[in-house]
């Protein structure tokens, strides 16, 4: 059997695992408890730390030769790191604070190694290099997992935004309201156009209000989508009143050369409603009630 040059690490991890774990966790908890109070489960963290150290010990003891051992995402160790990191991501930890976890372990291990291998510099160098290498990889792995989880969350959110219903409201006889909220992309535009047209036919709406107060940005594609919906609605014989364009929105649209020429446009939904009622020959009257 070749002498394992990394044996000191194995010994260290076997004999002082409790001490390392506790030192490590003290440091991590000190930072995390301050930054994310209420989001840290101490018992769980300690358990994970123990498991991680055990796997780390296994990795070094099963390894022989000069080159530092390699870790992949599929190994037990990678699995633990991944799980931990994605948990942090879900709880809203910052990436740097999550990376701190592994970096703290590296510091603790380094300190211990320096203390034990004080007498033999050659061995110390080798061990330090190995620890450095392995933990750097581990740190990259946690970072990957963190980003992956975040991306999954973002994907889910954008999906739920698409699924977010676009209600078409019957405001008065023959008057429909389509409040647009959020980003309008191709998929959503098609959905809302379909629903709008269905409702117009169903209620025989002669006036349709489209309120864009909740649309954060206007660009050519958003304007084109809205324009298509408007054109289609007009083909069915409904008049369109657009409301809620902000001054910035009006400036952007004009600068893009989009004028919504055949559409009545009003600054507020209130003014738009008045216009719509006028178009269907009705009006709201003050009846002398108690509330002024």
């Amino acid at each position, binding site marked *: 059997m070749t002498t394992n040059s990394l044996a000191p690490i194995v010994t260290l991890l076997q004999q002082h695992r409790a001490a390392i774990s506790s030192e490590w966790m003290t440091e991590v908890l000190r930072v995390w408890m301050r930054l994310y109070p209420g989001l840290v489960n101490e018992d769980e963290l300690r358990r994970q730390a123990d498991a991680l150290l055990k796997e780390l010990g296994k990795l070094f003891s099963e390894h022989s030769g000069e080159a530092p051992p390699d870790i992949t995402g599929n190994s037990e160790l990678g699995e633990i790191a991944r799980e931990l990191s994605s948990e942090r991501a879900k709880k809203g930890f910052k990436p740097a604070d999550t990376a701190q976890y592994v970096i703290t372990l590296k510091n603790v291990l380094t300190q211990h190694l320096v203390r034990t291998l004080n007498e033999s510099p050659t061995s110390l160098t080798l061990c330090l290099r190995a620890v450095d290498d392995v933990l750097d990889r581990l740190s990259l792995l946690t970072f990957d997992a963190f980003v992956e989880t975040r991306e999954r969350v973002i994907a889910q959110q954008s999906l739920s935004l698409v699924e977010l219903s676009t209600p078409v409201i019957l405001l008065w006889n023959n008057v429909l309201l389509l409040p647009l909220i959020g980003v309008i992309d191709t998929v959503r535009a098609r959905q809302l156009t379909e629903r709008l047209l269905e409702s117009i036919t169903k209620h025989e709406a002669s006036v349709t209000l489209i309120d864009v107060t909740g649309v954060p940005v206007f660009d050519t594609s958003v304007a084109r989508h809205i324009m298509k919906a408007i054109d289609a609605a007009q083909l069915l014989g409904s008049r369109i009143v657009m409301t809620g364009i*902000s*001054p910035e929105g*009006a*400036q952007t649209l004009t600068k893009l050369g989009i004028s919504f020429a055949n559409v009545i*446009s009003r*600054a507020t939904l209130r003014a738009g409603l*008045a216009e719509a009622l*006028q178009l269907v020959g009705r009006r709201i009257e003050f009846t002398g009630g108690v509330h002024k």
Partner: protein
Amino acid sequence: MKIPILRLGRILLSSIQVDLTDADAMQFQDDLVNKIAEIEALGIVIDITSLEVVDSFMARVINDTAGMARLLGAEVVICGVQPYVAMTLVEMGRDLIGVDCTFNLDQGLEIIKARIEMRGDARMIEGEG
């Protein structure tokens, strides 16, 4: 140089009396659009009686401003376009299409008021007083 924007009920009045630099023109456009949104103006009258030269940029600014005002639900009238200005604008092929023009402020206000009268929101919102 800031162009004053006067308020006459729910109508905004503005008179451009000196030649504007491009930056001034953009500033004016910005001010006017924000003012329209602020008071929910029903109409705006822009008086350009004293303008002897309207270059293509200025013509575009006026046109754009009218478009923005329309999107914000305000009627637009330009008054006092001078004969030479009218000629140059037509020569440039940049006529103020879509914007009504009148000889003077008096007529401008009359047209604006008539148009507002025809709208549904004027009466209702005023009635709430």
